[in-house]
């Protein structure tokens, strides 16, 4: 049982068999996080570097905990703490210096799309995992999203998923669209046209719907994306108040929704903008399950990239 890819840079790297394998493995790993002793010795002696060139708390912590629960040595570096980046070293040189210390896995987050790809081409040994690169992709987030849907609804094929908000700037939306389409889900997008990438329908096989309220009764899953407040300065939408009025999700708007509709959000949530507090804390919300499942998914990926089966000793 091995993945068909050495690096995980994009959902495109994964076959549907890989995805099933990651999910089956993550199913087994969920239990480790519920034990009193939350640790197994599987990756003892392996080194995992979390190289975060862009701020992150949840994803970095999730990867770090995943590594530690498998007994890998996990080391974090971030731009703010990295003398390398501050002193003017190029990204490529930083990667080569990290490689020179023999890590088994480099987990890279960067505000430039393609940085993990570049790293994967520079290194001769080891594996690279993309933990979010610019507006490109965030494959482990998409995997934990679909894993959560599969856990809660018991199936994935044929489900209808709505993604609402700033699709254009969202790497989560890109990875989600690729993964969901690959695994046979239907994807509907909703949000201000200024926040939709041009030709997204043709490129990803998804449907843009102009009216949010029309689509809600059909959906099995609704994923709200974070409104990046800094985009306001770019005049892509008039005001947060107006956005919340047209695209914010609240209980009133969900009246016509299916009872089992799942509400998801990659975090961090702007309470009262993308989602109203009653929805965030309500029974449909699986936002915190996504966080829990993120650890299991990342454990599965570390294990499948690094583990190996020897001859069986009986």
């Amino acid at each position, binding site marked *: *049982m091995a993945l068909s890819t050495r690096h995980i840079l994009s959902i495109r790297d994964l076959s549907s068999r890989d995805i099933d394998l990651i999910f089956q493995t993550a199913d087994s790993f969920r239990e480790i996080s519920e*034990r*009193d002793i939350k640790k197994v010795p599987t990756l003892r002696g392996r080194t995992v570097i979390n190289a975060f060139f862009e701020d992150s708390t949840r994803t970095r912590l999730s990867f770090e905990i995943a590594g530690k629960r498998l007994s890998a040595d996990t080391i974090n570096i971030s731009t703010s703490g990295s003398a390398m980046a501050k002193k003017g070293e190029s990204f490529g040189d930083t990667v080569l210096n990290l490689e020179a210390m023999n890590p088994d896995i480099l987990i890279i987050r960067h505000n430039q799309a393609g940085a993990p790809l570049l790293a994967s081409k520079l290194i001769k040994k080891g594996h690279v995992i993309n933990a979010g690169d610019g507006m490109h992709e965030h494959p482990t987030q998409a995997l934990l999203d679909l894993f959560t849907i599969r856990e809660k609804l018991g199936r994935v094929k044929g489900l209808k998923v709505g993604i609402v908000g700033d699709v254009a700037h969202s790497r989560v939306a890109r990875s989600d669209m690729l993964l969901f389409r690959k695994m046979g889900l239907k994807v509907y997008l909703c949000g201000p046209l200024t926040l939709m990438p041009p030709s997204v329908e043709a490129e990803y096989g998804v449907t843009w719907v102009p009216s949010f309220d029309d689509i809600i009764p059909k959906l099995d899953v609704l994923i709200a994306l974070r409104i990046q407040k800094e985009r306001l300065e770019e005049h892509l939408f008039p005001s947060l108040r107006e956005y919340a009025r047209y695209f914010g999700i609240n209980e009133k708007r969900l009246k016509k929704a299916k009872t089992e509709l799942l509400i998801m959000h990659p975090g961090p949530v702007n309470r009262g903008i993308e989602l109203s507090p009653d929805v965030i804390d309500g029974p449909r919300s699986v936002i915190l399950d996504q966080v829990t499942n993120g650890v299991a998914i990342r454990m599965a990926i570390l294990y499948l990239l690094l583990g190996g089966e020897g001859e069986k*000793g*009986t």
Partner: protein
Amino acid sequence: MNQVREQSTAKASLRKRGGLFYDKESHVEEKLIMNVKDMDAALLRIAKEIVAAGTDGVALVGIRTRGVPLADWLARKIEKVQKKPIDTGVLDINLYRDDLSEVAEQPLVKPTELPFSVTGRGIILIDDVLYTGRTIRAAMDALIDYGRPKFIRLMVMIDRGWREFPIQADYIGKKVKTDADQIIKVMLESIDGENKVIVKRKI
């Protein structure tokens, strides 16, 4: 796929020769060492031994994959002997193996199911074949991560020798003298379609 096809043609060309199965094409010699009755009798004998030693707080834990149906089988025997059921659990030891980094393919990790707290319980580990002892070493490590059992004992259907670790079984279905190039297969109905133990050798 190819392997499955090879096996089925090999089976088709098996010829019986006084308990010895000899396949000319793939040069595999197959010998039956326990049939379903032998296995059932061995488990009944072991069940009596376990009950005689006392089953208060004792649970059976099968090691995936073939220890699991064996544990269920033994549990049914114990229930018959003592007229009350015994707890059973399932242990997956893949995360505790000492050979994970040696080759490129990962075993699929399946869930461990221990529907009771291990702490303070007597645990009898159940496996099909005791060989090098490495699986049992891993199983003990895995079990201890769930708590502090009062004791751990070991039951195996076949002890084939060739130990690499100082590990011995407390309950043994059958001891078999083997060569290193022989393969012992404990076949169980829920996995293999029938209950029997065979020894194979490539010639």
